[in-house]
Each structure stands twice: as C-alpha cells, then as structure tokens.
C-alpha cells in the first residue's frame, strides 16, 4: 500500500498506473464516465479503464465542423472537449422529478430516481470545472436548492485534466477559465510524454491516488508542465475580448449585426444544448391511459425554442433576432449581473456544434466594432 498524499501534493505516476486510480474509483462504487470515441466524435460514456480512452486520437474543430483525426500516438488526452459536457451527468437532459400512483384513498407520491448515481467523471477540463462551478451557483445557491442536482453533484468525483492541446474553437484563455485546472477537482492530471503528473485537490482524491504507485513530481517535471500549459494558452483557436462587458452589449441592443446573425441562425437550439453552463429546462407532466400513474419530468429546454418564451397572450421573443440576442446577452452580459461571472467559459462547443457555423466570438467582435446604437 502506498502512503496517502497530502492535499495539494503534486505527484507523478507512470501512465499505466492511471488504471490503478480508475480501479480504486470503481471499487469505491463509482461509475466511470470518460471520453471515448463513438459515432465519429470524442464523447462521454461509461469506460472501464485506459483502454477505452481515445488513445492517440484528436479532433479538428472549426465553426460548424468537427473531424476526428489520428493525433500523437499513445497520447491519452491529446484532444479538446467534444459535444458532451459533464452537464449530461450532473443535470441530465431528461429527469423524472417524481411519480404519482392512484390508490384507494387518493394517490401516493413516489420519487423519480431511487438513488443518485455516483459518477467519477474522468478527463474534465478546466472550462468544464468552471461551468460546474457556475451550475453549482444556479442550482445550489439561494433559498431553493435543487435536490436532484445536489444529489448527483455531491456524489460525483471529478478527475480533471489540464489542456495541453486546445481545440480550434477554444478560448478559455480569454475567459480566464483555463487551460489549467485551478480549483474544483478531486485530482487533476497533466500528461507529459512519459508520466502523468497528478495534483491532489481533495481528501477523496488523495485516497484514490494512494492506490497507484505515486512519487512526488520532480522540479523538472513541474517546470515542463508549466511551460506546456503556458504554450497551450498561446495556442487557443479563438480569442474573445471581454472588456466592457456587460455594458458593451446593453449599449448595442439595436446593433444591425443582430439582424445579420438572425438571417443565418436556424434557432435550432444546438448551442444551448451543448453549452456546459446553459441550464434552462421545461417541466412536463405525463400520464398513462388508465389515469393510474403520472409523472413530472424535466427536460432540457432552450431560449431558441418557440414555446420557451410564450406567455399568455403572446410571445416575448417571436423572432430569431430576439432569441439570438437574448442568448448572447445572457451569456455575456446579464449573467454577470445575475451570477457575478460570465456565462461563457470559453469551451467553444457552441461554435463547433452550430450547424450554421455561427461563432459567438465573431459576433461579439462585430458588435463591438460598430458604434453604440
């Protein structure tokens, strides 16, 4: 048995020893979820060990375009984020909130989910850690914390990875949310050529690392990691000038660019579905044919959807211009008033996965370019 590393330790393990950590997580009752290749992309799914990771794979990402490509052979984490975010697991796209059943006396209420699943999320990037911190504020702060989110969130283990190969649509350096994982993880990996450096972020993380043959990282290794991260910061596919937000957008609500982007935007909602911070949902009731059982279900919704802004008497945002403007001003302006931070963590997903190739960094730059109107 290896000694348990203290909090804040920077350790080093041979790459194959990651399987020991993953094995310890499994033994502790976690379901392992990590990146894997499926359907032409690197998605999140259940994994059992290193062999399931996209070893040697990477992806080209551009606005509206994603292509899986062979990367550096043997590299475990040589790619940026894909279409899935941890949101899928902490805040699932469809969740039964509760069920009811008719009884002789009336009806009884049953829980929607018996017990929250315990996920160990493997390969979470800095932008996604920032996004989780945002969703924590949304769902857990305030007078009515969401019990469904809380149950999954408290049960989760976050095995993060520092990004050394940012993607073509990444700009976390601009939003100051990456590429280095600074907080909010249990363990954080940095992949060097020969070894994995592991930073211990929590007691739970320390306990899991103890399952592997770790040693303290050398000064040389730490310098290499620091340098690689600094280089990554300079190789972001996109940049976004966040100065003067939120006021910049408030002053330009009638900018002609909104009309121009609305002509291209499909109002398809893909951007909001892939965004790791977007949290809007619809709540719907279902019932069976006999009227004996019913359920209340929460599903991801979007400000791009027609019904979303329908209120009695009409639509608040009847056209695409109004919807796109709502989305972008929420992400980059009103979010700051609401939660004290930008609603965008620079992950680039909405750029890559927009079927119309709309790029919010380009839209903001165009709006910034014009005169206030």
């Amino acid at each position: 048995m290896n000694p348990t590393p203290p909090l804040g330790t920077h350790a080093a393990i041979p790459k194959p020893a990651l399987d020991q950590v993953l094995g310890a997580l499994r033994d502790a009752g976690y379901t392992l979820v990590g990146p894997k290749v499926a359907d032409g992309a690197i998605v999140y799914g259940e994994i059992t060990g290193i062999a399931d990771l996209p070893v040697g794979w990477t992806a080209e990402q551009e606005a509206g375009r994603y292509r899986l490509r062979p990367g550096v052979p043997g590299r475990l984490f040589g790619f940026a984020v894909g279409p899935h975010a941890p949101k899928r697991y902490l805040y699932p796209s469809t969740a039964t909130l509760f069920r009811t059943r008719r009884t002789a006396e009336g009806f009884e209420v049953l829980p929607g989910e018996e017990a929250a699943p315990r996920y160990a999320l493997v390969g979470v990037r800095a932008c996604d850690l920032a996004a989780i911190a945002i969703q924590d504020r949304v769902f857990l702060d305030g007078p009515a914390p969401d019990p469904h989110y809380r149950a999954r969130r408290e049960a989760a283990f976050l095995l993060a990875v520092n990004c050394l190969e940012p993607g073509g649509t990444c700009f976390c350096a601009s939003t100051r949310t990456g590429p280095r994982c600074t907080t909010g993880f249990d363990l954080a990996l940095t992949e060097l050529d020969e070894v994995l450096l592991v930073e211990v972020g929590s007691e739970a993380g320390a306990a899991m690392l103890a399952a592997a043959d770790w040693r303290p990282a050398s000064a040389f290794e730490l310098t290499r990691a620091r340098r690689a991260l600094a280089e990554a910061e300079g190789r972001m596919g996109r940049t976004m000038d966040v100065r003067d937000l939120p006021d910049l957008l408030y002053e330009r609500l009638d900018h002609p660019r909104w009309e121009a982007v609305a002509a291209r935007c499909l109002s398809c909602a893909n951007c909001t579905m892939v965004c790791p911070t977007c949290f809007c949902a619809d709540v719907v009731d279902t019932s069976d044919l006999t009227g004996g059982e019913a359920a209340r279900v929460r599903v991801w919704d979007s400000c791009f959807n027609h019904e979303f802004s329908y209120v009695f008497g009409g639509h608040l945002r009847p056209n695409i211009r109004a919807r796109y403007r709502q989305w972008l001003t929420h992400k980059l302006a009103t979010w700051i008033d609401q939660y004290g931070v930008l609603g965008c963590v620079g992950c680039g997903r909405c750029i890559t996965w927009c079927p119309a190739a709309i790029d919010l960094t380009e839209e903001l730059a165009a709006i910034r370019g014009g005169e206030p109107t």
Partner: protein
Amino acid sequence: MARPRLAVYKFSSCDGCQLSLLDCEDELLALAGAVEIAYFLEASRQALPGPYDVVLVEGSVTTEEEVERLKEVRRQAKLLVAIGACATAGGIQALRNWADADAFRRAVYPTPGYIRTLDRVRPLGDVVLVDAELRGCPISKRQLLDFLAAVLIGRTPRMPAHSVCTECKRRGAVCVMVASGVPCLGPVTQAGCGAICPAYARGCYGCFGPMERPNTGALGDRFVALGQSRDEVARAFRGINAYALPFAAAGDRFARSDIEEG
C-alpha cells in the same frame, strides 16, 4: 361516465399511421379499456355510427368523393386529429402538385377516363377544421399514446414545436452535419420522432414537417456550403412534407437554379 368513443378514418394514404396504433401492442388493452373503439376498419369489422369524441384521420384528400366524406367525418367528430404527413401536409403523393397529373394518368392507366382526381393533393386542413396534428411518416406511437392519455385525463398533450436537434442533443447523438458533413433537415423539422435518423448516422428527412418559424433558406444555404447542388437542396425539401408551406417555398426557391441568389 361513458367511455369516450374513438374512430379512425383513412383517406389517400398507405395505412402506416393506423398501423402505429395497432403496433401499440402493450398498450392496446389499456386503450381498449379506456375508450370505446367505435370505428376502426383496419382493426375490426364492427363499424358503429357517430358521433365520436375523438377521430383520428389518416391520409390526404385527392378526390371529390374524399372531400365530401371528410366533411361528413368532421360533422361526426368532436375532436378531429390529423395523423401523419399525408393528413397534415399532403404527404409524398403531394409531389404531383408540382407535376402534370394528367400525364401520369395517361401513362399508368389503360383507361384514364375512369380516374377522376382533384387538381391538387390536399392536406385535411385545406378542407375542414383540424383540431390537432400528429406529425410524422409514420406518426410516433409514443406521441399518439401521450396524446390520447392527455385527452382522457384533460391535460395538455406534449407536442413540441421546436427542432429535431433539441431531441438529438438530449439523447446525446453526435451531429451528423457537423461531424460528417451530412445534410440534415433536423434544424428546421419539428421534434417528435426522438431524432431516430441522426442517432443512426443519417440526416433527418424532415418527415415530421416544418417546425415553428423554420429558417429553411439559411439551412439550404448551409447545405450548399457543404457541397450540395441547389437542385439537391430543392429535392431535400421536396420530400414527404413537400407541400407543407415553408418546405414548399424553400423547394421552389432552390429549384430555380437559374436565379443565383446572394
């Protein structure tokens, strides 16, 4: 309380949507218990007269006789529900609205004089008031059962007007348009199918018809950017829901290949 009376009628169509109802094997007993199936020729010879509480109507209207019969069905129906692309938009047979039906008639039938049809294939809504639409080719059995359950209990049925993309992303499918460059009608098509085609690496064919405010022009332009000809784009819109207004307009726009739009 008496069980609500259900009837199922068919016009010009392939019977596939009615089959979706028969396909509800697990739920059929519960359904038969909850409603009186008064008229459903595909399932039973028993044909009880109206009036009916709920009438599901499959098929498009293509002859004068059908126009009259549909008006009579409407008179017997408290709630008339158009089921499937034929009933809601004319269906695949509405492609003849862009062609010379007389020429087809002469080519196919030895005695074309016996065949009498309307000049255009019509969705039900062109002839009578339709209370609700279940889209699809065929309709989704899940959506049909939810609709009936909602009517029975008096709640709002769940019939989203938003894109197939929303369902595609909820189920975690990888976007075929972005990851493989496959043209997909999902961004302009109404949800309800559960994004079946994209989940099997195919582009959406638009069988649930146009969503609310579809930006068909922008999607067509994007198909062109992905390497499709304008003619191919026109054909993508001229499919099962060719005659649904926004798809018809987009089909026409991209078919005019002589006009190069900016």
